[in-house]
């Protein structure tokens, strides 16, 4: 569905019509990605009592306009969309760059946010020099680097069970093709814009301290992009944080360990929505 028009802001609703009266799980993807990264988690929750809004962030695949240059600017736009949607009880789920956006969204919508789940998060979210250089000079090489480093090992990118979203699919090549599609459809600058937004974001600790709801950190033990250790400053800044580390997963938790991630999200959603009052 379109949450906003001119420019269009798109959200996948998990195969069910969006109902703002239901508790709503908002999925925010990472750099050079889109809503389809969450296919199994979003579709399941949409059929188990929740409304789902899995966004394409501005300038990514179905959402129009340029990719926005800062985490704060993206959060402003998404907050506007969520207010327009009429959803009153929100659980924000962000992956990597999306986790930073979820922190800023919670600052903007404190009354509506019942919980924030930060998947493969880190602060500061610095991008390695080698990757930044490739992003500037050789986008295809940069996409290959991201693809390899997103998995717990190079062979794990090709032999994980279950494969995502089901038997017969290649986790590695789907991830690469999606990033290539975005580069072709939305332009080669999306990646550097997203990375610049991650690199420049400075308010993580303040935003985590300001959270008025529980936070869940789901981290891949073999994450080469955002190691579990690099999430520690955010975890310590939160008033109420729980941590789930998933073995056998790198950065791409949604595809490497879809069932374990879903289990963590289900448990968290049940807890925070049971505890959170309905906003006025």
């Amino acid at each position, binding site marked *: 569905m379109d949450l906003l028009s001119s420019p269009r802001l798109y959200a*996948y609703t998990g*195969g069910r019509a969006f109902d703002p009266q239901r508790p709503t799980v908002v999925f925010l993807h990472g750099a050079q990605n*889109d*809503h*389809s990264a969450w*296919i*199994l988690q979003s*579709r*399941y929750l949409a*059929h*188990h009592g929740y409304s789902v809004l899995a966004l394409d962030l501005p300038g990514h*695949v*179905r959402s129009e306009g340029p990719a926005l240059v800062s985490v704060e600017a993206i959060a402003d736009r998404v907050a506007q969309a969520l207010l327009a949607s009429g959803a009153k009880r929100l659980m924000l789920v962000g992956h990597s760059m999306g986790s930073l956006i979820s922190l800023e969204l919670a600052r903007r919508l404190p009354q509506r946010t019942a919980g924030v789940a930060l998947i493969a998060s880190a602060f500061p979210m610095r991008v390695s020099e*080698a990757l930044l250089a490739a992003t500037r000079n050789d986008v295809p090489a940069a996409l*290959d*680097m991201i*693809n*390899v*480093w997103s998995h717990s090992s*190079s*062979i794990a*990118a*090709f*032999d*994980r*069970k*279950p*494969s*995502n*979203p*089901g*038997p*017969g*699919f*290649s986790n*590695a*090549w*789907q991830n690469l*093709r*999606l990033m*290539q*599609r975005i580069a*072709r*459809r939305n332009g080669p600058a999306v990646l550097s814009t997203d990375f610049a937004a991650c690199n420049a974001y400075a308010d993580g600790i303040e935003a985590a301290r300001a959270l008025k709801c529980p936070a869940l950190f789901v981290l891949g033990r073999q994450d*080469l992009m955002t190691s579990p250790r690099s999430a520690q400053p955010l975890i310590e800044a939160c008033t109420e944080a729980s941590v789930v580390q998933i073995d056998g997963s790198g950065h791409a938790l949604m595809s490497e360990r*879809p*069932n374990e991630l*879903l289990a963590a999200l289900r448990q968290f959603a049940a807890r925070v929505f049971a505890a959170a009052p309905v906003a006025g």
Partner: protein
Amino acid sequence: MTARYPGFDTLALHAGQPPDPATGARAVPIYASASFVFEDSDHAAALFNMERAGHVYSRISNPTVAVLEERMAALETGVGAIATASGQAALHLAIVTLMGAGGHIVASRALYGGSHNLLAYTLARFGIETTFVDLRDLAAWRAAIRPATRLLFGETLGNPGLDVLDIPAVSHIAHDHGVPLLVDSTFTTPWLMKPFDHGADLIYHSATKFLGGHGVAIGGVLVDGGTFDWLASGKFPTLTEPYAGFHGMNFSEESTVAPFLLRARREGLRDFGACMSAHTAFLLLQGIETLPLRMQRHVDNTRTVVKFLSTHSAVEAVAYPELESHPDRVLAQRLLPRGCGAVFSFNLKGSRAAGRAFVEALRVFSHLANVGDAKSLVIHPASTTHFRVPDNELAAAGITQGTIRLSIGLEDPADLLDDLAQALKRAQKVG
């Protein structure tokens, strides 16, 4: 920290299969089970509704078959694959996922006979038309495209003259018109060529041939490159609009890069049912594990045989794209630097009887209707596959009375040359 994908040889052995979590088996277990037990009712509903990944019923997916599918996707750099009962079933699945009655295909004229039959006769009966073009005539490809065209199709190496499909050029034409290019990559396998790197969007194989490599199982594999933007094309409502046959699912919303495979499995395998058995997948996987080693030997032996035949006094012509005389030599150097496969044709001097005598005299080569076996194979089209075809129509198809098709196997090349030499002598006597 360097970023590197596993090499082709490693993927041929490992992709799609960690050691079996149930037993620790290192070899791929044969899951000979029609169905798979649900954990509970919620798990059952979630599997049926594509909310969870897993197996329900082996017509839709099977753990052993999935290893083959994921291995082939890995080797072809595709977003996924679907294994089918045969190569013909893979071609059928690709077409019916993209179009229905009223659809139109533009295809190379240099096709395997079975593919030609499906397109020219059978699908025409169901309202899907095909225009056949000379694969080297790029203007003809472009001119044949109509508003109803939904697919361009050719073989990486065409029958019978090993015509090389100019995939970069033909895919460019396809994409200019918002349609994908499907290629039959049976003769080349991903070891000789990766068609997605050159612009193809969909690939299928008769896995019976070089992938399996031992002539023991019939099967096919359809691979999606994930490169074609179905949404941007706007010509594929089966992939971009809600499907009443599966909970109103809009496949392109579910997956940005793999809606084709979602629909092909959830509709095509479900309804047409041309699935692969676990036993077959196991046999084909044994072949794929040694594909890199076998293909190198196939090509080496083929080059030896081609060299021998092309200078033999009983031979009129040899069609192999590495020869100076082949019209696609330059293109082959660009697209097929590792070699042009191990199936090729040559023309004997003399009559149809000479061809028959040659085939019957061979002792190492087996006379049968297949290619891509570890053992060397031969067939004489004029007296077998095309024996009812008048001479003028044979000529139009590039086949003469003396055309012989060879599939070069893995034997000692000296034994292959000896066998060919004595059979050629027999043919020369018949004249």
